[in-house]
């Protein structure tokens, strides 16, 4: 059965159809949320909130966009609303990282490079980090990102470029030593 058939079933009260829809899409939603928040409990919580909202509002899905796009946009909405907690967590993580890390000479072959990149990625503001994670790591297209976040495609491209630019700036000098 395809998504539309399962959605029709779920709308008609078929809980098995709803469950199949969930099983089909939950892993990707969970993975994206986990990538963005970096916390199992929060990823689970936001995934649950996302599907509860989706099933409660399934009647509002008109099929104009792909179900996955709508689903991910709900997930992002849940995420942004709950990010205050994540912000604090990230802040604590950065403090820990700063305390544990030692200034290191890095180069492309240096094992510290990826640690630095991870750290800088987590430092990016959410509005830039999400497009970078979605595009460069999760493989979403700009169109999908734009529809998911409710922004124009050009804005998605601009935010990705700005995010990458900040990463490059932060990692400037690496590899020249």
């Amino acid at each position, binding site marked *: 059965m395809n998504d539309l058939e399962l959605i029709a079933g779920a709308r008609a009260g078929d809980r098995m159809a709803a469950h199949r829809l969930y099983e089909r899409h*939950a892993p990707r939603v969970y993975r994206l949320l986990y990538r963005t928040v970096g916390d199992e409990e929060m990823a689970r919580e936001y995934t649950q909130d996302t*599907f509860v909202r989706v*099933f409660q509002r399934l009647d509002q899905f008109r099929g104009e966009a792909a179900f996955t796009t709508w689903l991910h946009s709900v997930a992002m909405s849940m995420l942004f609303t709950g990010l205050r*907690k994540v912000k604090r967590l990230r802040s604590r993580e950065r403090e820990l990282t700063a305390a544990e890390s030692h200034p290191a000479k890095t180069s492309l072959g240096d094992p510290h490079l990826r640690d630095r990149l991870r750290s800088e990625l987590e430092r990016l503001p959410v509005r830039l980090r999400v497009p970078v994670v979605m595009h460069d790591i999760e493989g979403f297209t700009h169109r999908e990102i734009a529809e998911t976040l409710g922004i124009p495609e050009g804005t998605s491209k601009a935010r990705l470029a700005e995010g990458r630019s900040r990463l490059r700036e932060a990692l400037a000098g690496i590899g020249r030593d």
Partner: protein
Amino acid sequence: MDEKELEEQLAHLRDTWRVSPEPPLAEMWQNIEARAFGPPVRPRSWTRALLPLAATLFLGFGIGQVVPNLLRSTTPVVKTDEEAAQIQRAEQPAFVGVATNYLERVTALLVNLTDESRKGHTLEGTTERARDLLATTRLLLDSPDISDPHLRDLLDDLELVLAQIVRLPRRDDAPDVYLIDQALDQRDVLPRLRVMLAENLTSEP
């Protein structure tokens, strides 16, 4: 580092950075099912245990159906729309009362939260009040008396905002509620609350 090198490094993170563990699908589904669809369908073995409850509900439902009809038979014939509205309002005093009280409490909480946090003051008891209001929100959402779609939408948004407030960490310093503020602004929650509250108060018998 140039663009190409950065892209390569980012692509490498796909397999190494925040790789999610296996999602707890079954556990999450239990939570989702309970919240989105109500209690799961019980297996047959529960039927016997639920029979007395079902009988009670049936009896209650029957009484609920019969008694208002008996009462209505003694009420005068409705002549105008205004009279009909008055009767309808009189039939829902409990819900209106609970909803009004709830709207007042939630307005007070949100106004207090935004004002005090901007001043950097401590918000003692906020989480507990929000948790209490969240429970009331869900009860109201489940109430059969809720027919106003605007109220339902507002309750949906309030459920989301209150859930976020409940998650605020317990700290001595005032929490940064920027994102909650943002959610309140984007959804026009407070203006809608005030309108709904005003309408409810003026519609009380």
